[in-house]
């Protein structure tokens, strides 16, 4: 697997620095706060404080980041996963069900954030079950999966 000239096999660390992802149902230790998770991921992905603050502002995180994960709603938990996925300078961001469990306002903010990153040259791989997902972005390709197989490619 090659990304930006880097091989996953030969340049594992450098490759993984270029790929971020957000899970559909994030699972983190409940006693940690969002700030603590961000601190660790930022250290490994090379994200600075300016980027962290900008992402927090974009996604409307506020002071919740200081509280422990155990107090978060499902929406806040999803935002935690999303903010971790945008840290550093990835070339590819994989977002699994990014629009589930977050409110309409946050969905708009997320769309703006994704479009902003696309303009910078970042590629995205998104999955979704929601109905009008195809209208959200100008996709290079749209695929449907059924029974674990590629069912349809929309051009």
């Amino acid at each position, binding site marked *: 697997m090659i990304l930006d000239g880097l091989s996953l096999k030969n340049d594992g660390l450098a490759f993984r620095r270029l790929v971020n992802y957000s899970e559909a149902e994030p699972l983190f230790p409940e006693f940690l*706060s969002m700030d603590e998770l961000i601190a660790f991921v930022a250290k490994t992905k090379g994200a600075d404080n300016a980027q962290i603050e900008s992402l927090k502002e974009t996604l409307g995180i506020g002071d919740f980041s200081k509280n422990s994960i155990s107090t978060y709603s499902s929406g806040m938990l999803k935002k935690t996963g999303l903010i971790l996925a945008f840290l550093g300078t990835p070339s590819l961001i994989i977002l699994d069900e990014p629009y589930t469990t977050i409110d309409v306002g946050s969905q708009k903010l997320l769309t703006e954030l994704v479009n902003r990153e696309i303009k910078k040259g970042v590629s995205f791989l998104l999955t979704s079950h929601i109905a009008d997902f195809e209208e959200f972005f100008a996709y290079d390709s749209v695929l449907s999966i059924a029974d674990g197989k590629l069912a349809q490619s929309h051009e």
Partner: protein
Amino acid sequence: MEMKQHGMIAGRILQNSIGFYALLLIFFGYAVAQQRFQLRLLNDKRYRIFHSLAFLSFRQLCWSFLPVWIANHALLLLYSMLMTYVGIGIDSGGKLPILWIFMVAIFLADLTLTYHKLKKPFPDRIRMRSRLFQNLNFEFWFLMYLRENRTMLILAVKLVSIILLNGFFYAFHSGGYDLRWLEFGLLCATYAHFPIWLDKNDFELQQLSYFHNMPVSYLMKLRLHSTAIVLILLPELALLVYKYGSSETLPELLFLLILFISLNMGIYGLIKLRKDLESAINSAYLVFFLIFILVIFGIHPVLISSICLLPFLIAIRARYSI
């Protein structure tokens, strides 16, 4: 210990006022810890349904909670019954009624506190970090996990390990044993930590699954895991220094410290390398006897440490693990 010896200890406690009141203090400490744990549990998202207990009257709550209270305080009740059985035959100076009045008082205090807590709305739990440690670094995550979720495990392991090591040092200082006795003691204390390392592996596999593909360099992983392991072993390391630390024994102390840390790292590495619990346990049995043989034959602790470190160094090298 046999029943007879338990009976003797109970009898001594009853005949000694300081011992008796110290025991009551321990019972009180246990009851407080139990109460705090229960209230935290009630505030957990999964158990908030139990807030409905607030609709019961105090009498109804006492009856409903009686089996729960008895189960949670079974240890205290059983020991109190043993002391009563022993105390009947000896002159305990009126301590038995005091003991049972104390137990009833604990029960009533416990239920009263629970009753009043249930009546109030529970606040959202917001973790306040101390001013010194605003953010928890990765090295402390597992320690915090143990504190939050496996308090009894960490306490029990530390208790067993410290008592075990103390016993080995007592025998060593009585004379007739060489350093190999202490090395064997450290091996036994390492195996007392086996459940902790199993938990560490489970914690990293499940709760830290998101971080498995993080681009963490080998040196950083080495530092993170080593720090976490040394932090957990601090009580035993302190005990080693206390019991064996002197200017004459400094080199040997250093070897023992390195040996203990390496043994634990090795066990953790072994668990990480094995795919399932059964194979980890079987490998651990084999390794115990191998290291036992190495110790018996007087192989230098530094050499044993180097062998023990191998599984750890190989295990943390794995690409998709934190």
